[in-house]
C-alpha cells in the first residue's frame, strides 16, 4: 500500500491505495467517478482517457501510485455551470449513439484542440482523424465525432 495525494477535478484527495491499483480503478471504484469507462482494458480503445497534468492518457495503462502529486481531470470535471464547448458540440452534432466511448472522445478532443491551439497548427479533418487513432467507437462511424471536434475547436 502507498499513500497518494492528488487533485481530481479541483478537489484535493489523499488516500491509501494498493500498489497494483490502476488509475482507472482508483477513479471509478475509490472515487466513484464512473464517467470514465473501461472499454478494452488492453490500452487500445481510449474509453478510459483522462487528463493528467493537462495531457490525455489512458487511465487503464497507468498505476494510481504514479499519479501521486498530479492534477487529474475526468469527464465529470470539465463542465463549469454549463456544458463544456466540446460536450455541447457532441450534443449539437449528434456525435454519439450508445455513448460508451464518448467520455474518452471528449477528453481526447479537448486535449487535441488545446495542443493544436498552443502550437498554432490547423486542426483540419485529416488531423482530427489522425489524432483519434487511440479512440475507438463501435457505433457512429466517426463522421459526427470528427464534426463535433471541428465544431468545438472554433468555440474553445
Amino acid at each position, binding site marked *: 500500500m*502507498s499513500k497518494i495525494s492528488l487533485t481530481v477535478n479541483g478537489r484535493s484527495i489523499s488516500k491509501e491505495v*494498493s*500498489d*497494483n491499483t*490502476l488509475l482507472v480503478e482508483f477513479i471509478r471504484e475509490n472515487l466513484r467517478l464512473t464517467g470514465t469507462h473501461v472499454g478494452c*482494458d*488492453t*490500452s*487500445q480503445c*481510449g474509453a478510459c*482517457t483522462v487528463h*493528467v497534468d493537462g*495531457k*490525455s*492518457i*489512458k487511465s*487503464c*495503462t*497507468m*498505476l494510481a*501510485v*504514479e499519479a501521486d502529486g498530479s492534477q487529474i481531470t475526468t469527464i465529470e470535471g470539465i463542465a463549469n455551470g454549463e456544458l463544456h464547448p466540446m460536450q455541447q458540440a457532441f450534443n449539437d452534432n449528434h456525435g454519439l449513439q450508445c455513448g460508451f466511448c464518448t467520455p474518452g472522445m471528449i477528453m*481526447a478532443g479537448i*486535449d*487535441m484542440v488545446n*495542443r493544436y491551439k498552443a*502550437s498554432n497548427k490547423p486542426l483540419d479533418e485529416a488531423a482530427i482523424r489522425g*489524432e483519434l*487513432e*487511440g*479512440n475507438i467507437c463501435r457505433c457512429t462511424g466517426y463522421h459526427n465525432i470528427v464534426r463535433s471536434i471541428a465544431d468545438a475547436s472554433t468555440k474553445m
Partner: protein
Amino acid sequence: MYETTFHKASSADDAASKLGAAEEGKLLAGGQTLIPTMKARFASPSDLISLKDASISGICRDGDSVVIGAMTTHAEVASSVDVPAYLAALAGGIGDPAVRHRGTIGGSIANNDPAADYPSACLALGATIRTNQREIAAADYFEGMFETALEEDEVIISVVFPDADKAAYAKFPNPASRYAMVGVFVAQSGGETRVAVTGAGEDGVFRHEGLEAALADSFTENSAASVAVSADGLLSDIHGSSEYRAALITAMAKRAVAAA
C-alpha cells in the same frame, strides 16, 4: 495484475541499486508496454522501480548530435525544436496521442519490440546508448527479438543521435495496433548510407546491405526499387506473409528516399 511493490528512484544509480535489491524487480518508465504485460499476467515483477523522478528526461544539443534522456516521452521528442525533423516525425507516429504522452524512448529501446519504431532510427543514424555503466553503439546493442545488450541492473540514461546529412523514416502501420508492419529508416551522413528495417525481421531490427549499396551508388527511388528484397528471414504471421513484408520493404524504402 499480481501484487507488486512500488518504489521511486531518485537517480539512475538509485534505480540500479533498488533493482539489485529486489527479488524480481523491473524498471517502470511510461508503462505503455509493461503495464499491459502485467495486466495480462505475462509479467509479475515483485517490485516496480519508477524512473519518473530519476532526472533522466529532457533533450539537449551536443555539437552535431542530439541527446535524448531515457525518460523523454514520444510527445516531447515529436514537438522538440532541438530534434531533427526526421526523428521528430518518427516519434510523432508512434501509437496514438495518449500513448505518446506516457511512452518513453528508454522504455522503447529497452523493450526492443521487433515492430517498434525507434530501433530503426538508432541503427540507421549510428546512435549511442548511454547507461549507468557504459556507452553502447547501436550496432552492438540490438541482439534479436526483445533482446538487448543490457545487463540485469543496467539503466539507460540517454540516447545520442548524430545528425544525418539527410534521413527519413517511412512506416506502414498495422491498421489495428499502429506498430510497424514494416518501417524503413534511411540515412546518409559523411558519405555513409545506412538503411535499417523494423517490423519485418524474425530477429528484430536489421540493416539491409542490398539497399545500402544501391542507395550509396544512387540515392533515388528507382535505385531502391531495383533491389531484389528476399523474403528469407522475414516474419510471417496473420498480418502478412514474409513475401508481403519483403514487398513492403521496397515500398517503404522508396517512400523514405523520396522524403529524405
